[in-house]
């Protein structure tokens, strides 16, 4: 038992990986078991993640050195810099890990019924498990090249999943191609930036790079490349063209994971800016760049969403707009990073709001996409004009949709309100205009979701949907778990902020602690 707990950081990625490779073999003998295998393995991973999170939050960061004689041996005798692949798990990394494992587990539960009728299920589950593995890898690793590898695995598996329905029509393949081109370029530019780091500092470990960071001209180029491509992968506005296509064409459970995957890219952006560069860069400029990206994403995302007729496309534009809130909160924190008074009075608060919004967004956005999937499963359409009166037959789905919509619009007592309130309060003290824009966007979000509610669920019972039934149990369970979490997070936001979010923010801000975890010397 003890050794399992000692190796938990490695098992978090090893178990889904093993399950991903066993799935095709198992699928030859028994088609039914593979969905249960995937669900069980992802459930186990969730337990492991919770355990690691408890460990990290009580005892501080954990390092895991792959292939070494001991798990914590970062600097073997006679070495001044780490040479092996190291997992460095601090509060921020495990915070994202919790989101990923929760979302992946619920997606697997949802898929049991949702994907039942599809062929090629073994490939679906292999790719789903690979996607989960690669997201864990991106979030837990302390090695920048290792990050690149997981980044690429994440793109390849998510592209294959987006294009999964291309046997029926051409659009999923088109969306997949768009996403593939975008993510290949991003990954290659990340690799180029890694080359720039390696050429200067002869190191690939992020903590080692951070400890010798000079911020030369080449580092500036690397920063520009990394910020641009990671913001692109996170779906921020000037580079958002892939988001609506990919989100709307993927199967619903996969869309939920894709939201978490783009947040993993966002996490990488924060990690690179805060942990590698930190105060060496001009924090005010870069902070304002993040703020402007955030405000643009919020505003353009929501205005584009209002005019959509396709329910999943509408939600996809909303997720662009929600990404804006996170960028705004963390951007304000970055802009005042060198000013201790401002950082203490509202900077940390703003970052808490931004980071808290990540988990809230994963929950309610996931729930909304799952309800959209439920509607698609029963009505076989995503067009809002063709829907109507679904509340008569799909009671549970309607309730879950209301919870999700209220949460995303920031209505108390749901979780969206909690994080948005923190963002409004702290951003108002930084710049009142930004807070007003954020509130306006929230109002527009509400308007847009009221429209969806009206056209999909309200109205008389339509002739063609008379025999529509409530969705199967596994889908209801997945949506119910998400709804409960949304209500819980909305009722006890202080608890969540104090025990999970605040340590994550401090782990981002405190660069010295990050480098000392690997290189020693505290």
């Amino acid at each position: 038992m003890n050794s399992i707990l000692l190796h938990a950081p490695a098992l978090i990625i090893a178990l889904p990986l093993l399950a991903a490779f066993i799935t095709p073999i198992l699928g030859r003998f028994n088609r039914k078991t593979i969905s249960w295998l995937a669900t069980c393995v992802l459930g186990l991973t969730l337990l492991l993640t919770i355990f690691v999170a408890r460990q990290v939050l009580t005892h501080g960061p954990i390092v895991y050195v792959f292939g070494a004689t001991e798990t914590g041996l970062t600097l073997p005798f006679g070495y001044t810099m780490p040479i092996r692949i190291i997992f460095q798990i601090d509060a921020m990394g495990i915070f994202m890990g919790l989101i990923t494992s929760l979302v992946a587990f619920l997606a697997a539960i949802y898929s049991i019924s949702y994907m039942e009728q599809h062929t090629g299920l073994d490939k679906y589950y292999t790719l789903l498990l690979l996607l989960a593995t690669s997201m864990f890898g991106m979030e837990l690793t302390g090695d920048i090249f290792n990050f690149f590898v997981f980044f690429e695995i994440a793109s390849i598996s998510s592209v294959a999943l987006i294009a999964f329905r291309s046997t029926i029509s051409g659009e999923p393949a088109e969306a997949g191609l768009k996403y593939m081109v975008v993510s290949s370029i991003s990954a290659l530019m990340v690799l180029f930036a890694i080359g720039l780091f390696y050429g200067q500092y002869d190191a690939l470990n992020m903590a080692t790079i951070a400890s010798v960071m000079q911020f030369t001209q080449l580092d500036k180029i690397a920063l520009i490349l990394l910020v641009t491509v990671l913001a692109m992968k996170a779906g921020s506005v000037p580079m958002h063209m892939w988001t609506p296509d990919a989100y709307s064409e993927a199967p619903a459970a996969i869309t939920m994971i894709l939201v978490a995957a783009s947040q993993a890219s966002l996490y990488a952006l924060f990690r690179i800016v805060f942990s590698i560069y930190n105060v060496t860069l001009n924090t005010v400029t870069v902070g304002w760049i993040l703020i402007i990206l955030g405000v643009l994403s919020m505003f353009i995302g929501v205005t584009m969403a209002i005019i959509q007729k396709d329910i999943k496309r509408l939600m996809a534009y909303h997720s662009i707009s929600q990404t804006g809130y996170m960028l705004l909160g963390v951007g304000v924190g970055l802009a005042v990073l060198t000013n201790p008074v401002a950082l203490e009075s509202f900077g940390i608060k703003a970052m808490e709001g931004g980071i808290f919004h990540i988990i809230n967004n994963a929950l309610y956005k996931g729930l909304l996409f799952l309800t959209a999937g439920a509607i698609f499963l029963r009505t076989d359409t995503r067009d809002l004009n063709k829907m109507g009166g679904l509340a008569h037959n799909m009671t549970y789905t309607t309730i879950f949709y209301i919870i999700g919509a209220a949460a995303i619009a920031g209505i108390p007592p749901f979780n969206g309100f909690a994080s948005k309130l923190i963002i409004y309060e702290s951003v108002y003290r930084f710049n009142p205009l930004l807070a007003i824009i954020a509130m306006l966007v929230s109002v527009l979000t509400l308007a847009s979701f009221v429209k969806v509610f009206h056209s999909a669920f309200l109205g008389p019972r339509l002739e063609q949907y008379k025999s529509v039934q409530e969705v199967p149990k596994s889908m209801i369970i997945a949506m119910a778990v998400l709804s409960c979490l949304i209500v819980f997070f909305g009722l006890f936001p202080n608890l969540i902020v104090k025990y999970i979010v605040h340590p994550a923010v401090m782990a981002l801000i405190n660069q010295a602690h990050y480098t000392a975890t690997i290189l020693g010397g505290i």
Partner: protein
Amino acid sequence: MIGNFPFIAVIILIGLGVYSLLFKKNLIKIAIGLTLIESGVNLFLIALGFRKGAVAPIYTQAPEGVKMVLPTPQALCLTSIVIGVATTALILSIVMVIYQKYGTINTDEIRRLRG
């Protein structure tokens, strides 16, 4: 100057790749453009690993007293090549699906997702 030739080649390769990505309408040519960028980045990594007078890090074939280069950039490049094969195969298979469904691989004609 002669030492900078690999880096000039890197810039030319990446530039050509970006050009064909931005201005070519044929999906196969877009795939070729991605491969060009990838080769450029790989060449960059390999060029970083060059050290004057050092030999390849093959343990059993290096002569006594000669320094070996650190194989990290080569390992990075190898990993990137392997990933590149997977990416290219995936892109080409998606292009095949698109050709099957739409009957064309011209980007102007396959835009059904918009707005």
